[in-house]
């Protein structure tokens, strides 16, 4: 529902009365009144229809919420952070390699990078996790190092690197050409100029969008659930699901949801702040 009635009803030029005979101002007032009425109706309907007692019983039972501690933080949140930070670091590095390949003058490198990016950007993250799960079946003797952590981080690396590659490519291309020329004219090799001059500036440019990508990886880390993890390896979502089953109560789901938000909302703010600062600085 729009809260900007101006856009839904373009005012006739010059403030003259429209076809309906009402002034634009009057129509705006009516439109706003209608919106408030709809809102009130929905609220009343929900208030009457929902069994609040049962809902509270199921989602906000304090004794069940208490049972999630301290594992909620010491195991589940810790693991979520391990999976997502690990995935982020490797996705960043692989993304940088792919971005450089994509911009390379060697044509096969460009093809490989484009193929990788197109494939893994186009696949659902869940499918990639299932792939990792079934991979050792297909290739005998294949063992992903790092056990469950390794599998989870690998999955997130694959998911994240394709996006990261595109972001970093945009960042590399946003560094003015004169920077490379200045570095080369000072006698630096192409590689040295990339490492010392272009990449540091590109990374600065992509900090805000990569912060958002970290948030999205953090959420995707919930897919580790499908790797069949247990015990010390569970992350937030799996932990919430398990605890909810144990007590036949949905409170842990809500608790876990709030825990995600404790991390993702501040990060979102951080990203938009960095973005604004950069917009000013340039």
């Amino acid at each position: 529902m729009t809260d900007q009635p101006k856009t839904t009803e373009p005012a006739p030029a010059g403030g003259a009365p429209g076809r309906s005979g009402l002034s634009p101002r009057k129509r705006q007032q009516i439109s706003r009144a209608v919106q408030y009425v709809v809102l009130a109706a929905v609220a009343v309907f929900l208030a009457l229809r929902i069994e609040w007692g049962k809902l509270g019983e199921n989602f906000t039972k304090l004794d069940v919420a208490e049972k999630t501690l301290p594992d909620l933080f010491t195991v589940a949140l810790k693991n979520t952070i391990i999976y997502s930070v690990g995935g982020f670091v490797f996705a960043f590095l692989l993304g940088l390699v792919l971005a450089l390949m994509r911009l390379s003058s060697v044509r096969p490198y460009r093809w490989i990078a484009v193929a990788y990016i197109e494939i893994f950007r186009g696949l659902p993250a869940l499918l990639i996790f299932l792939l990792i799960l079934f991979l050792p079946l297909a290739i005998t003797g294949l063992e992903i190092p790092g056990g469950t952590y390794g599998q989870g981080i690998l999955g997130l690396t694959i998911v994240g690197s394709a996006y990261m590659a595109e972001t970093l490519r945009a960042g590399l291309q946003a560094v003015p050409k004169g920077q490379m020329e200045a570095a080369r004219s000072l006698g630096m090799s192409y590689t040295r100029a990339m490492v010392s001059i272009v990449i540091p500036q590109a990374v600065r440019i992509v900090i805000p969008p990569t912060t958002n990508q970290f948030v999205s990886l953090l959420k995707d880390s919930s897919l580790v659930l499908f790797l069949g993890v247990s015990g010390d390896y569970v992350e937030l979502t799996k932990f919430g699901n398990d605890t909810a089953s144990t007590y036949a109560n949905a409170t842990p789901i809500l608790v876990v949801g709030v825990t995600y938000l404790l991390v993702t909302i501040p990060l979102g703010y951080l990203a938009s702040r960095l973005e604004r600062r950069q917009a000013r600085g340039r």
Partner: protein
Amino acid sequence: MTVSSANPETSEAPANHAVEIRDLHKYFGKNEVLRGIDFAVEPGQVVCVIGPSGSGKSTLLRCVNLLEQPTSGKVVVHGVELTDRDVDIDAARRGVGMVFQQFNLFPHMTVLQNVMISQRRVLKRGKAEAERIARENLEKVGIGEKCDAFPAQLSGGQQQRVAIARALAMSPALMLFDEPTSALDPELVGDVLTVMRKLAEEGMTMLVVTHEMAFARDVADRVVFMDGGVIVEDGSPEQVIGAPQHERTKTFLRRVLDPTHTDI
């Protein structure tokens, strides 16, 4: 391999020109920007290249340190043929400083780091030595007190002087200037030209693409007028600016020296 001193054993370059260009052609796609350039710069000379925009003068300058790859022809700098495929271009560029219209300082580094980075990474100078040389050169261009500032905190004129110091810190034997004052506010042009004039007086070999006619007249040993990808006139400032022989040169100079003139 040292580039700064001409190597007498190099059979390719019998004469010890600082820069020697032979039959240089450069195409951008189908567009021929340089149509056979022949000229030389002697050590210690200051040569100003003037001409209308699109005449190929910047491209010529950029061919001298191979920021543009010539389509054909020969570029020899201090006895090293840059157009030879086997030449170590990174080594050759060390002896040639370049100053750009847009300064191109590294924005993520302080002024001091800007002047130190390639000394450290390319010449492998020690930290103390690199810093000493950086400070000397910054002092020389009159920005000694701005060492810890970032480029964005400096005026255009100050940034350009840092860029000159950065090039000088590599101890080049030749300096290329690509319209160094064209991006500056008019009141800041003087500071940069003063530094360049000082450099010329010290005997630096300089190749300067510029629209500053007063600078060309007062400082240059030679003025080269280019138009349409060829050198139209090449001589002393008195000849080229004072008494141009060709109609194209006359037209250009009329326009530059008196912008209100419209009989083109």
